[in-house]
């Protein structure tokens, strides 16, 4: 931790320590929702909000929480925000809430959120912790949106339900099935790592 400047934190969370590419965290709930861009967008906005507010709360309460029980307290704080997200989704976007199924609840066990609360919010001020949570969530969001854009274009020929490819284009059935998410993430990690290794060699 050499600097805690907002820009440095953002760069770290979005790129050099991207939760998915580099730390391979939070994949659990990540892949299943990437079949359409809309689902992914809603789901990841939920994750961004939960990560941000959990960090804020943990940071505010850090002197009040006894060290021994902090894990369970953090889990309860996360669960509290996830319940709010779930209730809001069910009230305003019932269709999407239904198609996300168990994955909204699974935000609770998303290792990114607990990881950031433990690694950052425990030792930093509330505002900067909130920012750290938001940018970590955004790093996660970017990767998932990329995966879902690839899957929706090749699988349905659309983005957000709007047709992009001509009707004559053959859609790839595999993009609608779970294995495609694994392949896309695998190849994305390959690309990102290669770019990073090249940069390292240059410097």
């Amino acid at each position, binding site marked *: 931790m050499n600097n805690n400047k907002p820009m440095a934190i953002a760069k770290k969370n979005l790129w050099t320590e991207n939760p998915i590419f580099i730390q*391979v*965290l*939070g*994949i*659990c*709930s*990540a*892949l*299943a929702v990437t079949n359409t861009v809309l689902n992914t967008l809603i789901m990841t906005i939920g994750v961004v909000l939960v990560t941000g507010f959990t960090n804020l709360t943990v940071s505010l309460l850090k002197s009040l929480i006894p060290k021994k029980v902090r894990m*369970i307290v953090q*889990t*309860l704080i996360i*669960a*509290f925000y*996830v*319940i709010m997200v*779930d*209730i809001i989704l069910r009230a305003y976007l019932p269709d999407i809430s239904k198609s996300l*199924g*168990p994955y909204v*609840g*699974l935000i*609770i*066990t*998303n*290792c990114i959120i*607990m990881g950031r609360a433990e690694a950052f919010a425990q030792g930093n001020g509330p505002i900067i912790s909130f920012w750290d949570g938001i940018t970590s969530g955004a790093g996660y969001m970017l990767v998932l949106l990329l995966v879902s854009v690839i899957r929706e274009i090749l699988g349905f020929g659309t983005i957000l339900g709007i047709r992009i490819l001509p009707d004559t284009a053959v859609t790839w059935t595999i993009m609608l*099935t*779970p*294995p*495609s*998410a*694994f*392949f896309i*993430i*695998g*190849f994305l*990690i*390959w*690309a990102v*790592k*290669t770019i990073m*290794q090249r940069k390292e060699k240059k410097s």
Partner: protein
Amino acid sequence: MTPDINPIVLFFASVFTSNILLANFLGMCSFIAISKDFKSANGLGLAVIIVLLITSVLNWAVYHLILVPLNLEYLRFIVFIIVIAASVQILEMVIDRISPALYMTLGIFLPLITVNCAILGVVLLLQIRNYSFVQSAVFGLGSGIGWWIAIISLAAIRKKLEKAPIPAGLKGPGITFITIGLMAMAFMGFSGILSVQ
């Protein structure tokens, strides 16, 4: 209403065609982290089977006998996670008392399991799909076995991959994801036989 699925069919479906890991992506974090080593993979897999069976049954009871009559369904996330954490803790103590040898192999994985999304995921699936008591128990057990099969196969494959010539950027998580993708396709091959969604 409860879906009309024969428990035996449900069992095989949850082990193979609807494998929670390969079809629903549940429990990926520990799956990738632990599958580097075959022995740990086996230990974690067995622990997941036990915990899944216990927590599915307990959470079914808690949800249908306590939360639904009291109209507290919206608290389910918090209640489920507390039940999981508590039962893992108790299981850890029981195993420690009964068999120290088993504790040495399974014990260290038990705390990890509390935050394993496979457990909470299966419990939420049970509740969303509205399974009966027997179906829940069978689904919990089958999902655990499916997860165990997936993690020990991946651990075995990764051992072989260590010696394979892989481009530097693809080493580690990259090639693991592609391997899991291929495994998922293989498991999907069963889906013509039966499917449960």
